[in-house]
């Protein structure tokens, strides 16, 4: 497949690995931000092929993982209402709240539907004027434009029966939270390619300058990731903090201004809780006051539902790159994908789930 096969080419990968080995004196700790990158690394076994001087740690970039328990509990309360058609991306359906998940609400008669685009939910609202259609809008900057567009479209059509539960999160404040932690061991970042597609890479220059780290916007295929690692290693070895773009075929400095404009029109920056990490100031998006009619949490008055995170798992430390999944005593024992204890095991993109799926240490 064009634009895929060449980025999975074992010969190209071999060449990049050789270059990395020649370039590295290390040791270096590099964090890949996005869960999709973690997934690729584990799926292709890239971590096994890198020289020992390089340690990859896995970042907070799994939107399913970091959606706070509270948001899920509020979503479950709304989804159980008989007047509601509740819509969501597929992988949120299995994520457990305090005592339930959307699949179970569906099995008890809740009208829960998987959609591939938030605009499908708008279409359902149009076709079901006597029902309330609610969309669970989670994700990073990548999914925000589509989710904002759904509200824009509903407003333009005068639909009053469409609303969103918004739990969007932003990458740069999370990177700053990690870098400013006294325990931080991350020395360079592979930034999330798709987030940068929307936002552009220039928003990372202040972070790179402030914390003196290399940041390399990187794609998701194995050759992308190896090239991203090579660039990061070269910047580290040369003592050159700054942003260097690996994902040239998709990412530009300014990103996608039209997409950002829609996001700004509908959403505004807010403080946001991250599952497993806690509150990060200025790290989320919420619906603007003038669009409050589309805010499902206000519409269905679920803001009173407040859930504390259980303190039984170390996902917060994993999301910040402080620990690896198999360093957790519960990993693969009390905590598995069928009965996850915390954020990083709940989604297939989470670091613990990726380790569990591809490389339970000691089993191979």
């Amino acid at each position: 497949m064009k634009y895929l096969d060449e980025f999975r080419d074992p010969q190209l990968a071999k060449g990049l690995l050789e270059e990395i080995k020649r370039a590295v004196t290390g040791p270096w700790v590099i964090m890949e931000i996005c869960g999709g990158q973690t997934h690729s690394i584990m799926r292709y076994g890239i971590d096994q092929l890198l020289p020992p001087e390089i340690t990859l740690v896995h970042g907070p970039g799994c939107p399913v993982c970091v959606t706070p328990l509270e948001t899920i509990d509020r979503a479950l309360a709304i989804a159980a209402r008989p007047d509601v058609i509740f819509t969501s991306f597929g992988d949120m359906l299995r994520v457990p709240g305090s005592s339930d998940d959307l699949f179970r609400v569906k099995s008890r008669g809740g009208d829960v539907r998987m959609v591939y685009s938030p605009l499908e939910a708008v279409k359902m609202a149009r076709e079901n004027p006597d029902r309330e259609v609610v969309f669970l809008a989670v994700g990073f900057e990548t999914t925000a434009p589509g989710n904002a567009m759904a509200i824009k479209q509903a407003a333009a059509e005068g639909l009053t029966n469409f609303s969103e539960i918004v739990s969007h999160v932003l990458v740069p404040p999370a990177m700053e939270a990690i870098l400013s932690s006294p325990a931080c061991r991350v020395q360079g970042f592979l930034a999330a390619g798709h987030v940068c597609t929307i936002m552009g890479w220039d928003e990372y220059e202040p972070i790179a300058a402030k914390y003196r780290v290399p940041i390399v916007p990187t794609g998701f295929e194995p050759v992308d990731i190896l090239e991203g690692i090579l660039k990061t290693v070269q910047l580290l070895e040369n003592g050159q903090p700054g942003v260097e773009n690996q994902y040239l075929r998709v990412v530009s400095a300014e990103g996608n201004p039209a997409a950002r404009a829609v996001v700004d029109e509908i959403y505004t920056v807010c403080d946001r809780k991250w599952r497993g990490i806690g509150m990060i100031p200025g790290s989320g998006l919420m619906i603007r006051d003038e669009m409050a009619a589309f805010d499902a949490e206000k519409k269905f008055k679920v803001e009173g539902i407040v859930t504390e995170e259980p303190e039984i798992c170390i996902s917060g430390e994993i999301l910040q790159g402080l620990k690896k999944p198999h360093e957790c005593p519960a990993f693969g024992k009390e905590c598995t994908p069928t009965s996850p204890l915390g954020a990083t095991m709940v989604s297939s993109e989470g670091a613990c789930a990726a380790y569990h799926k591809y490389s339970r240490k000691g089993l191979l």
Partner: protein
Amino acid sequence: MTDRPDFQKMSCPLPLMDHDSIQLAHGAGGLLSADLIDKLIMPRFASPELEMLEDQAVLTLPPGRVAFSTDTFVVSPIFFPGGDIGDLAINGTVNDVAMSGADVSALSVGFVLEEGLPMADFHRILCSMETAAARAGVRIVTGDTKVVGKGSCDGIFINTSGLGVIPEGLNLSAASMAPGDAVILSGTLADHGMAVMTVREGLSFQSTVSSDTAALNGLIKTILAAGPGTRTLRDPTRGGAATTLNEFAKASKVGIKLDEGALSVRPDVAGACEILGIDPLYVANEGKLIAIVPAAEKEAVLAAMRGHEYGQEAAIIGEVVADHPGLVAMKTTFGAERIVDMPVGEQLPRIC
């Protein structure tokens, strides 16, 4: 088979019926039921046993052990590229029985029809079942039809059961695998699952992916003739090849080592999997099988499979090993090694 019918030329005109959709009375046992059976069902499923119209089929089987299997088909949508719920119901049960090495001889068919199902849809399904049964060389010997109220089922559900006699001396078992055995896959992965997924409501991209639904009893005869020492056969349906291989590894307490480079996925199927974030190793197939064959017979079996219409793209995809018993591992195209785990549940499209 020398007198094989030309399936392409089979015509299947819808008989004139008093109703253009299924009514509750079609399942009530009266005149309308008789009309449905006589005009629509019997012409498609004619067999000496069925024509007796008794409460049961009476079969005379050759001596030997009998393989017996049942499966219920609830696929949505009922029509999808490459097939429909009808041929799926025939092929699925033929395959389940045939994986034992049995000579599949007879099937039962039970319909649950939803009130309001268009008569033309039911007829189209019956026609594809007739064609599938003829292709597989099996008879439908007994059946049942129920009609349920609107909303009580999704158009049509079909149960099929099948049986066949296992040849003397043949004893295929997932527990009989040994290190050194070859793992052979009969073709490409994930065709059926992605064909269904891409036409489900809500997924609006254009796709050319087509189901692989097929009866594999002919291919199995070919395999067993070329490889009489074959350990076991299974069709990787729900849960895909990864699930079947994990079941094998656990049953025989051996490890399985796959070679990622040997797996093949059609480009359009791979594209659909990429868009949805789904791993083809976990997606259902309905016309593929995995054969575990002793090393000494692997080349002969592979050559025989490639000579059969349903095994042209067969490949040796891995090996049974003594290491990591109960686990399936895969050598990636990059030379690393990773686990191929059991899936947790249904694969869900990822957010981004």
